[in-house]
């Protein structure tokens, strides 16, 4: 938003675009933080449509070393490989100034202290904010015809590589384009029509009520697209997991 030569402020985006932009920026922040809070209630992801320790992708917990049980160690298990993450993950900030066995730290979650019920309230409310702001953005963009400048068309595809080469300074001139260059259009198109819908659908796919309403759709979402909600991934049930003869104490809801 730079001043024009006449000193008058020029807005390059419509009021709807600017409003929804900030709304979904806020929604994404709240959804990530409350999502980490929800994850903490059962901090593991299984690549399965039910809890299945044999298909565990990720688990975050703490273990008490046999030699020094007073000083638990934070552990991230990625495909069974342990990584020590004490202080950051597994054994970390409890949201009230102390350390505790807990997957994600209090400073990163909403609410700060472990509270699944309130985390869900935040998450399920801002899920609507995200959904409605994307709908308003797309509808307003379609009415104002701004949207057509953003969508990647087949004719843009051959220009993608030249545009990238221009960015790498391997080409003197960018390929001819409209308001947005082909790479910008590609980014907008993928985020608007692929990533954000997937974020919403993969979340809904975890809901028993939605699963019952749209089993075949959510099934596909589970199996094929797994991006933000952790691999269509259902959490599991064991309280203990053997790691090198130590005990991995998973974080439990308070």
């Amino acid at each position, binding site marked *: 938003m730079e001043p024009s030569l006449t000193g008058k402020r020029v807005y390059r985006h419509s009021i709807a675009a600017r409003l929804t932009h900030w709304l979904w*920026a806020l929604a994404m*922040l709240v959804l990530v*933080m409350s999502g980490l809070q*929800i*994850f903490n*209630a*059962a901090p593991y992801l299984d690549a399965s*449509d*039910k*809890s299945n320790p044999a298909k565990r992708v990720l688990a975050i917990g703490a273990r008490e070393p046999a030699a020094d049980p007073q000083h638990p160690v934070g552990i991230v298990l990625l495909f069974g490989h342990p990584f020590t993450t004490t202080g950051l993950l597994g054994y970390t900030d409890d*949201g*009230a100034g102390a350390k505790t066995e807990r997957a994600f730290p*209090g*400073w*990163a979650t*909403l*609410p*700060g*202290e472990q*509270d*699944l*019920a*309130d985390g*869900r*309230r*935040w998450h*399920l*409310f801002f*899920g*609507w904010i995200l959904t409605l702001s994307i709908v308003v953005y797309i509808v307003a963009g379609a009415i104002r015809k701004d949207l057509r400048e953003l969508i990647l068309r087949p004719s843009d595809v051959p220009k993608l590589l030249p545009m990238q080469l221009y960015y790498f300074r391997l080409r003197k001139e960018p390929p001819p384009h409209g308001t947005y260059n082909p790479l910008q259009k590609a980014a907008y198109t993928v985020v608007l029509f692929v990533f954000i819908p997937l974020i919403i659908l993969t979340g*809904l796919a*975890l*809901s*028993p*009520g*939605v*699963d*019952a*309403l*749209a*089993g075949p759709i959510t*099934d596909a979402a589970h199996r094929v697209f797994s991006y933000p909600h952790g691999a269509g991934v*259902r*959490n*599991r*049930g064991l309280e203990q997991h053997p790691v090198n003869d130590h005990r991995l104490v998973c974080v439990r*809801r308070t």
Partner: protein
Amino acid sequence: MNRRLFVASSLGALGLSGCTSRFKDSLTQGPFRSVLTSAEKLNGVVIGTRGMARLYTDADIDRNFRVNGLDTPSDTTYTGLQKDDWRGYRLVVDGLVDHPQRYSLAALRALPLQTQITRHDCVEGWSVIGKWRGVRLADVLSLAAPKPSARYVVFSCFDQDQQGTHYYESLSLGEAAHPQTVLALDLNDAPLDPRHGAPVRLRIPTQLGYKSAKWVYRIELAKSFAAIGNGNGGYWEDQGYEWFAGI
């Protein structure tokens, strides 16, 4: 301040500074809370309990069904019934009904039984698949003939927490009448064991696990649940969880 700096510093302020917890908690507990919780009504309307929970096959069953929830009841009423092989157990159906009922286990088993292999989704995020056999709640309710003023079905349970607060749950009549909402008697081809809610538990696969109350002894048809517990319709609901648990 330019925009990127503004975004970065806002994130920093929200996420990293020491006083954030208090700020975040004040948002959660203040007047904004009623705004947050309003999403539940919307979710209840949009999602509801209309769909049919997916049915799984025998191969999907978790034979070691995870035990969760409050401790298995240990009071003498419950253990006495258990020792007597549930001969003295009666499931009471009363409240706003024309024909109050008292079912022995044998009487429940004499009703048509439904078998379902469905997934139990806990609010914490884990899930287990089990094979349930039981009586459709709709059948039990229609035998009791709810009065037109009845709007909710309230379940009283034997289990209680450390403070002595008893577990309870409630469903709308519509949720109760869903064809997959059953009073389960068997789990994985055996009568329910005490840890899984013997002798009778609710099983509602279209909602989260805490709705599926264990150790049920009374089903009351009511106009409202405002006077029960803290008035939110269930044990976990009284602690901030949603009454509509379809999501």
